[in-house]
């Protein structure tokens, strides 16, 4: 990279802006019959002879799982091959990530739908046993920011996020926030504390659903979750969004400011990004077939619509593995910076 390029932060910011605003433009290549024909031409001989296993490292029914099942369904539509979702859960994703990096066969029958949460596992928990580099990204699926919500019946229902931060500064440790330990949920709150000087009381939970339960029961003041987890509560006005962690305001939560807006910063951005990956070393022809199939699926306007309903944003501009790898590389760099600064990574 030469020095005339814009700073890393701007690149990422621009990338994020693109992600959020460019969603939903079907490119001509994604039109069904052309794509299917092109993929059929790429099909290697005698492959696939058995169903392709789409691995998800989170439990069935959760946000990741739903995204993966949708992607698998559209992959089947474009390739005619069978794709079966398999949940390899355990250790908050660690078990599945390790298996994918160390044990998954690079024979074209194993793919994974993973999120940027793998970077944290790779850098902080793998302890040298594996690295995320062992998995090669082939198709971008979607990304979304994290929403911060408060209860509509609680004491903070009319407060803005800025107010809450001020409260947390004035009375440290009284505003209870739900976090998932060891994930971007925790790091997000930590960064907010760092840049604002506020001090929240971080209560650990094991998932979005338990933290929403706690919020509704007034056991925490602020909860963090993905749009899919909170949509029903927003519709029935049980929860009120106070901020989103993306670069731009979410089209679904137009009234909630971004964290950057609330804090007057430009570097508090945390997104969940999802993509399809294969173990490194898959034969080139099979990899090309899988890439074409999943890219076509991701570009399909119907799937884009389904993703939109889930509150995520696709991005048809990221349509080659090279572009995707570059994008992800930036995310890794930012995360590594954060971990080094906060002393988690030496």
């Amino acid at each position, binding site marked *: 990279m030469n020095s005339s390029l814009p700073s890393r932060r701007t690149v990422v910011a621009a990338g994020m802006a693109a992600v959020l605003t460019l969603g939903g433009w079907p490119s001509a290549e994604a039109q069904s019959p052309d794509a299917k024909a092109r993929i059929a031409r790429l099909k290697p001989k005698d492959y696939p002879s*058995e*169903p392709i*296993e789409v691995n998800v490292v989170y439990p069935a029914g959760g946000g990741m799982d739903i995204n993966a099942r949708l992607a698998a369904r559209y992959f089947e539509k474009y390739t005619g091959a069978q794709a*079966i979702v398999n949940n390899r859960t355990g250790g908050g994703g660690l078990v599945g990530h390790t298996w994918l990096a160390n044990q998954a066969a690079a024979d074209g029958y194993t793919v994974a739908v993973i999120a940027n949460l793998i970077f944290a596992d790779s850098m902080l928990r793998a302890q040298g046993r594996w690295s995320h580099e062992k998995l090669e990204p082939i198709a971008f699926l979607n990304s979304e920011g994290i929403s911060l919500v408060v209860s509509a019946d609680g004491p903070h229902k009319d407060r803005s996020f800025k107010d809450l931060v001020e409260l947390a500064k004035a009375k440290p440790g009284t505003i209870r926030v739900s976090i998932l330990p060891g994930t971007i949920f925790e790091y997000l709150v930590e960064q907010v504390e760092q840049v604002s000087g506020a001090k929240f009381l971080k209560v650990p939970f094991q998932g979005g659903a338990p933290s929403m339960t706690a919020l509704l029961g007034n056991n925490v003041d602020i909860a963090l979750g993905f749009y899919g987890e909170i949509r029903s509560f927003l519709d029935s006005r049980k929860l009120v969004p106070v901020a989103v962690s993306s670069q731009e305001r979410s089209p679904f939560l137009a009234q909630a400011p971004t964290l950057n807006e609330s804090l007057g910063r430009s570097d508090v951005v945390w997104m969940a990004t999802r993509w399809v990956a294969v173990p490194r070393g898959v034969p080139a022809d099979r990899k090309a077939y899988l890439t074409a199939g999943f890219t076509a699926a991701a570009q399909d306007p119907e799937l884009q619509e389904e993703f939109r309903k889930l509150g995520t944003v696709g991005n048809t501009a990221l349509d080659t593995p090279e572009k995707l790898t570059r994008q992800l590389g930036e995310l890794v760099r930012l995360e590594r910076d954060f971990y080094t600064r906060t002393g988690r990574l030496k």
Partner: protein
Amino acid sequence: MTAEASRATAAATRAPFAPAPSPASRPDAPLPPARSGAIRIASLEPVLDVVWIVVGVALCVQAWRLGAWSANGPDSGFVPLVAGALIAACAGLLVVRRAMAPARRASNDPDTADAADAEPFWAERGAWARVCALVAGLVALVLLVRFAGFITASALMMPVLTRLIEKRSWWFAIGIGLAATAAVHVVFTRLLGMSMPRGPWGF
């Protein structure tokens, strides 16, 4: 319960079927004649208690390293510490109780297993060999499932396991083994749509 029903139940329980491994045997039963060389449960229990104490202490050490208490209350090591200490303490208690209580069969204290005191660990001759063989067979089955695929592993090992469980003819063993393999394969792959592990030769 009517008198007749209870007598029928009593008769049923005295019928010759394999006795259930219940927590305490009948205390009024006559002492079975010891087979020569048979190891009694009572003589092995102290070994187990020592194992427990070692395990408990090891757990406490590991837990201590993890850290038992933090500013927020119990830390990662708290539960293993308490549990390890409890295991070691209880094992110690068992040792003490056994040392103090005379080895009478009349006493019903289940802590010291007095009623089962005199029972041999392996009641029948060759029992330990059968158990070890079956464990070995299961280990082989798991290894083969991993490296040779389900169908091969099952087709090879099921006859062996069948014969280990009861010594009938090899034809019987092979028949049962292959039938079981086929049935389980059909139920799990066809009916439930599960994919079973495959070996290097594709199935």
